[in-house]
C-alpha cells in the first residue's frame, strides 16, 4: 500500500474572488489545454490560464493567470461546465438550463440557444457522427427522460428522446450507449436500438451514484457496499469489482490507476489487479476528475493537481517494499513514452532487481525466471556465493547495486540447509543457462562455479563438465578439487589443460591405493589413456609402473595405439620388444599384435613368436601337474602359428620340435618345407590321425592347381599302401576311405598301379565305379565342346566367304573415305558396311571411321 503513484501539487492556491470572507465556493470546473474554467456557487464563471513547469529538481509547479470572469446573473450555482474546444464554446448548466459561452471572452454565444429542464449533461467521448465541428451531448431531464443533442457553434439540434422508468441523476456516454444512474438502479441505454438494459440496484439515498467512463465502451459505477463495478456497454462486467471507501464524491482515471475521492482521502487503485495502491489524505474535496490525462482536484476554494510520480520512482518504491510482482506489472503497463529499446533496458534492470529480491526471499522459482528474463550478469549472482568466483576474476558488483545482499550466508543466517538450498538453486540455474545467450562471455565463471558446486556434493556431472569443452581454470579449481578429494576429476582437469604428467601421477596414486575417489574408473582407464597418449616420453615414464601392475592389460599401451598416430622412433617395435624383455607375457602379446594384427612380415618377429610359443609348450610339458588341456591349448596355438605364418625359420623350430618329439608340429613344419611325404608319414604312422592327414592334403594344396592336389593325395595313398610298412593291414581301411572320400581327387591310372593285387574288386568297386563315371563324363563333355567349336568355326568361315564374295572395283577415282586421297597401294581396308579406306587410315577395325558404327567384335574373332 505504500506505492507513491501521485503527488498532490497546488495549482491555483488563491482563486480569484474566493477570500475567506466570501461565501462563494467552487462548484464545478473543467480544464481544456491550458484553459481552466471554474463555476462557482454564486453564479460566476472564472477563466484561468494554467501553465505547468517543472523546476530544476524535477518538481512540477503550476503558474496561473486569471483571464476573466462572467456573472450569469441567476443567483444559482453553476452546476456543470464543459469546454468544447472544437466549437470554441463552453457549455454551462445553471438553473437547470444548458447554455453556451464563448471560450475566450466568456460572452454568451450568438443566438442564445438553450436546453431547459436539465439536471445533468455529458459529452459523448466517442462521437458517432463524423463532423469535427459538432459535439454530441446527452442531457438528463427533470422528467423521466434523457435526450440527445448535437451542438454546433451556434446551434443546438435535438436528435432523440428516450424515456426512462425513473428520472436519471447521473449520466455518461460513449458511442451510442448512455450509462445512467436512476433513482433505484443503474441502466444502460442504447439510443440506436432503444434497448434499455438494467444493471443492478442502488440505494441513492445513502450513496451518491457515480458513472465514470474509463475506456471505450466501459464504465465504472459505484455499487453497493463500496464496490466499484466495471460495466461494458453490453451490460456485463469484464473485470472484478474494485473495493473502495464509502461516500465517494468523485472518480478519476489515469491509466493504469483509478482514483477515488471521498471527504477524507483520495485512494489510488490499480485497474490491473484491482488493489489499492495509495491513499492521499485530502479533506474538503469537491471535484476530482481527469482532464486529458491530468488529474485536477478542487476543494471549496482551491485547485490542486495530482501529478503522477514517474513510473520508475513508483517501481523503485515497490521494489524497496519487495513487491516485485506489482513492480513488474506496473512497469509493463506504465505510460513510459520511451523508445522500445530504452524501455527494454529499464525493464531488464527492474527484472534484475526483482530477481534478487525474490532470491533473497527464497522464492527461487520466481527468481530463476526473473534472472533469466532479466539477463542478469551471471557474475552478480555467483559473487553472492563466497569463493565460487574464479580467483583471477576482478569482477565488481554493478554500481548502483542491484541488491543489498552481502552473500548467501548472510541470507541464510547460518542455516546450513538454506545455504544448501541456495547452492542447489545456483547449480540448477547455471546448468540451465549454460550455453545460452545469458552465459555468453562468462563461460569461465560459470564453469568454475559449477565445478566447485559439483565437487562439494561429489556430483557425477563433475566429469562431463571437465571433459567437454570446459572453461575451468586450472589453478583455482585444482586447489578446490584437492580440498574435496575429487582426485580423478582433478586428474581429468590436468589432462584437459595438457598437464598429462600430473594427471598420470594422480592416477598412479589412485591405482596404488594411496588416495581414493569413487569416480575413478580403474586401472584400465589409465592404460587406455596411455595407449592414446601422443607424448611418447611420458608413455615410457609410466610403462614400467603399468607393466608391474598388470602385464596383460598394460600391453595395450603398445598394441592399441590410435590408428592415425604417426610412427615414432620411441615406439618402434624393436625398441619395444627389447624393452619388454623382462615381461614374458607382455612380449608374447606384443608379438602376437605385430604378427597377427599388424601383419608385419618380418622373419624376426615370426620366429621370435614361434620360439616363444614353443618355449611355452616346452615349459608346460616339463612342469609337473600341468593339466593336459593347458598343454593342448598351448600346442594348438603354436600349431596355428606354424601353419598360418610362412616367415619363421622352419629349420630352427623343426630341430627343437624333433627333439621333443612333437609330431604334429613336425608334420606342419615338414609341410612348410614341402617335404610332404615325411609330413604325411608322421601323421599316418606316428599320430595315426587319418583325418588330419587328409586335411593336410587339402590345406597344403590350397591355392595351387589341381595336379598339385592330386599329387598330395597320391602321396598320402602311397604312404597308406607302402609295401615296406609292417602293419600295412591296419592302413587298408583308411586307404579305402580315402579312395571313396568325396573330397579327394586322384589320377586313376596311377592309383591302379599302386593298389596291391591282393585287393578284391569288391573293395574297390565304389572307387572304380566313380572313377569310370567321372572319366566318362569328362570324355563326353570334351566331345561336346569339340563339336561346338567346330560349328562355330564353320559359321565364321561362312561369314568370311560371304564378305569376300562381292567384288570391289578399285580405280583412281575411288578415294579413301577417311583422308579422301586416292589409293596408290593395292591393299586397302573394307569395312562390313562397304566403307573403303587406306590401311593406315583404318585405326580401329571394329568402328566404322565414317559412320561411327560399331561392329560386333565377337563375330570378327
Amino acid at each position, binding site marked *: 500500500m505504500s506505492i507513491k503513484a501521485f503527488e498532490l501539487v497546488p495549482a491555483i492556491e488563491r482563486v480569484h474572488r474566493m477570500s475567506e470572507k466570501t461565501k462563494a465556493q467552487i462548484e464545478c470546473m473543467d480544464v481544456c489545454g491550458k484553459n481552466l474554467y471554474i463555476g462557482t456557487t454564486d453564479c460566476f464563471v472564472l477563466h484561468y490560464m494554467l501553465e505547468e513547469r517543472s523546476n530544476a529538481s524535477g518538481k512540477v509547479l503550476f503558474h496561473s493567470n486569471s483571464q476573466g470572469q462572467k456573472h450569469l446573473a441567476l443567483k444559482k450555482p453553476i452546476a456543470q461546465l464543459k469546454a468544447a474546444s472544437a466549437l470554441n464554446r463552453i457549455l454551462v448548466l445553471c438553473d437547470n438550463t444548458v447554455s453556451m459561452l464563448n471560450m475566450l471572452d466568456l460572452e454568451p454565444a450568438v443566438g442564445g440557444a438553450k436546453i431547459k429542464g436539465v439536471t445533468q449533461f455529458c459529452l459523448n467521448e466517442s462521437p458517432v457522427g463524423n463532423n469535427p465541428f459538432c459535439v454530441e451531448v446527452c442531457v438528463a431531464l427533470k422528467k423521466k427522460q434523457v435526450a440527445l443533442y448535437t451542438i454546433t457553434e451556434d446551434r443546438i439540434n435535438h436528435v432523440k428522446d428516450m424515456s426512462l422508468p425513473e428520472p436519471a441523476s447521473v449520466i455518461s456516454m460513449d458511442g451510442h450507449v448512455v450509462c445512467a444512474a436512476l433513482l433505484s438502479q443503474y441502466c444502460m441505454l442504447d439510443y440506436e436500438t432503444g434497448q434499455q438494459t438494467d444493471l*443492478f*440496484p442502488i440505494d441513492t439515498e445513502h450513496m451518491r451514484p457515480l458513472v465514470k467512463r474509463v475506456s471505450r465502451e466501459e464504465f465504472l459505477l459505484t455499487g453497493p*457496499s463500496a*464496490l466499484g463495478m466495471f460495466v461494458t456497454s*453490453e*451490460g*456485463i*462486467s469484464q473485470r472484478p*469489482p474494485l473495493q473502495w471507501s464509502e461516500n465517494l464524491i468523485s472518480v478519476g482515471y489515469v491509466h493504469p490507476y483509478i482514483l477515488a475521492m471521498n471527504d477524507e482521502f483520495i485512494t489510488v487503485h490499480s485497474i490491473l489487479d484491482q488493489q489499492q495502491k495509495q491513499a492521499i489524505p485530502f479533506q474538503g474535496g469537491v471535484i476530482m476528475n481527469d482532464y486529458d490525462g491530468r488529474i485536477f482536484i478542487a476543494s471549496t476554494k482551491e485547485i490542486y493537481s495530482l501529478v503522477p510520480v514517474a513510473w520508475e520512482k513508483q517501481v523503485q518504491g515497490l521494489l524497496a517494499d519487495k513487491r516485485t510482482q506489482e513492480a513488474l506489472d506496473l512497469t509493463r503497463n506504465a505510460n513510459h513514452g520511451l523508445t522500445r529499446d530504452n524501455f527494454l533496458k529499464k525493464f531488464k534492470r527492474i527484472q534484475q532487481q526483482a530477481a534478487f529480491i525474490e532470491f533473497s526471499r527464497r522464492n527461487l522459482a520466481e527468481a530463476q525466471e526473473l534472472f533469466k528474463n532479466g539477463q542478469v550478469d551471471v557474475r552478480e549472482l555467483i559473487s553472492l556465493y563466497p569463493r565460487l568466483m574464479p580467483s583471477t576474476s576482478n569482477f565488481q558488483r554493478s554500481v548502483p547495486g542491484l541488491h543489498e545482499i552481502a552473500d548467501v550466508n548472510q541470507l541464510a543466517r547460518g542455516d546450513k540447509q538454506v545455504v544448501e538450498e541456495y547452492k542447489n538453486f545456483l547449480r540448477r540455474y547455471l546448468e540451465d543457462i549454460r550455453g545460452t545467450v545469458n552465459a555468453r562471455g562468462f563461460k569461465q565463471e560459470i564453469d568454475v562455479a559449477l565445478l566447485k558446486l559439483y565437487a562439494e556434493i561429489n556430483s557425477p556431472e563433475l566429469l562431463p563438465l571437465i571433459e567437454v569443452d570446459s572453461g575451468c581454470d586450472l589453478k583455482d579449481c585444482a586447489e578446490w578439487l584437492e580440498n574435496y578429494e575429487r582426485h580423478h576429476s582433478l586428474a581429468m582437469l590436468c589432462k584437459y589443460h595438457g598437464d598429462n604428467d600430473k594427471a598420470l601421477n594422480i592416477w598412479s596414486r589412485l591405482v596404488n591405493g594411496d588416495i581414493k575417489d569413487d569416480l575413478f574408473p580403474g586401472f584400465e582407464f589409465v592404460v587406455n589413456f596411455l595407449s592414446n597418449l601422443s607424448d611418447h616420453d611420458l608413455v615410457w615414464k609410466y610403462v614400467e609402473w603399468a607393466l608391474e601392475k598388470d602385464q596383460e592389460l598394460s600391453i595395450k599401451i603398445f598394441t592399441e595405439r590410435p590408428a592415425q598416430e604417426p610412427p615414432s622412433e620411441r615406439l618402434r617395435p624393436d625398441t619395444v620388444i627389447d624393452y619388454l624383455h623382462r615381461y614374458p607375457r607382455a612380449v608374447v602379446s606384443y608379438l602376437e599384435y605385430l604378427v597377427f594384427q599388424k601383419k608385419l612380415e618380418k622373419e624376426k618377429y615370426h620366429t621370435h613368436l614361434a620360439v616363444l610359443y614353443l618355449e611355452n609348450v616346452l615349459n608346460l610339458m616339463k612342469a609337473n601337474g600341468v593339466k593336459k588341456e593347458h598343454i593342448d591349448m598351448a600346442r594348438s596355438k603354436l600349431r596355428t602359428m606354424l601353419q598360418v605364418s610362412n616367415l619363421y625359420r622352419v629349420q630352427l623350430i623343426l630341430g627343437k620340435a624333433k627333439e621333443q618329439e612333437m609330431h604334429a608340429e613336425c608334420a606342419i613344419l615338414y609341410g612348410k618345407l614341402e617335404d610332404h611325404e615325411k609330413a604325411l608319414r608322421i601323421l599316418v604312422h606316428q599320430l595315426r590321425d587319418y583325418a588330419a592327414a587328409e586335411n593336410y592334403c587339402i590345406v597344403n594344396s590350397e591355392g595351387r592347381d589341381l595336379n598339385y592336389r592330386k599329387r598330395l593325395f597320391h602321396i598320402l595313398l602311397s604312404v597308406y599302401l607302402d609295401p615296406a610298412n609292417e602293419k600295412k593291414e591296419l592302413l587298408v581301411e583308411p586307404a579305402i576311405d580315402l579312395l571313396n572320400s568325396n573330397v579327394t581327387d586322384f589320377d586313376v591310372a596311377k592309383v591302379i598301379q599302386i593298389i596291391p593285387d591282393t585287393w578284391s574288386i569288391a573293395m574297390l568297386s565304389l572307387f572304380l565305379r566313380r572313377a569310370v563315371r567321372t572319366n566318362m563324363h569328362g570324355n563326353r563333355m570334351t566331345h561336346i565342346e569339340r563339336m561346338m567349336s567346330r560349328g562355330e568355326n564353320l559359321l565364321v568361315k561362312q561369314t568370311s566367304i560371304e564378305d569376300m564374295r562381292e567384288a570391289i572395283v578399285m580405280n583412281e577415282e575411288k578415294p579413301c573415305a577417311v583422308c579422301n586421297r586416292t589409293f596408290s597401294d593395292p591393299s586397302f581396308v573394307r569395312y562390313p558396311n562397304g566403307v573403303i579406306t587406306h590401311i593406315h587410315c583404318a585405326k580401329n577395325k571394329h568402328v566404322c571411321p565414317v559412320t561411327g558404327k560399331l561392329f560386333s567384335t565377337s563375330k570378327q574373332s
Partner: protein
Amino acid sequence: MATPAGAKKKADAKVIILGDYAVGKTSLISRYIDGSFNPHEPTIGAAFFLKQWGSYNVAVWDTAGDEKYTGLSSFYCRNAGAAILAFDLNTASSYESLWARFLPLLDAAHEDCLKVVVGTKRDMLKETDREISVDEAIEFSKEINKNIDLSRLKGDPYFETSAKSGYNVSRVFEYMFQYCLPDTKLQLPRDTIVVSNAAQPVSSRCSC
C-alpha cells in the same frame, strides 16, 4: 442481447458460481484453477478467473454469497452459459437458498444456461447425518434444467465435491465446458466443408 462470443473479447464462454455464504464457492474454483486448497477471506463483490480449456478461454466468475450482494450477483450472471449452484452438503438451509434466492438470479443468464447443482464439503459429511438425499438433489437438478437438452451430456447435472480433497471438482467444470463449448473435434470437419463449398463455384467460374 449479445452472444457469448461478442460479450467478451477474450473469453469464449462464461460460467458463474452461485450459492449461500461460506458454502465454499471460492475454494471450489481455486481448487480447480490452482489445484490447491487454502482458506479464503469472504469474497467481496465478485472475483474473476480465466481458464484455458483446450483452445478456448473460459471466464469463471466467483460471486459473493452474502445476501447484501444479491443485486450484484444477478448482474454478474448476465450472459453466463453455465452456472454452478453450490450448497453445503452439511447445511440444509444452504440447499434451500438455491431455490429461493439464487435460481431467480439466473433469469439474467442465457436462456439455455446449464445449471449444475453442486454439493460441497463432501469430506465433512457423515452418511448418517445426510439431510439432502442424492435422489432428491438429482431430481432438483433435472427439474431446473428441464428447458434444455441434457441428453448429450454424461450423467445428471448434480455433483458432490470436496475442494479439500479435490474429489469430483474437475468433473464439474469439464461437464459444464462440454456443454458450453463446441467440441473441437466436431468443429473441424464442419469448417472443412464450408471451405470446399466456397471454393468449388469459384473454380468453375474461372474455367468458363
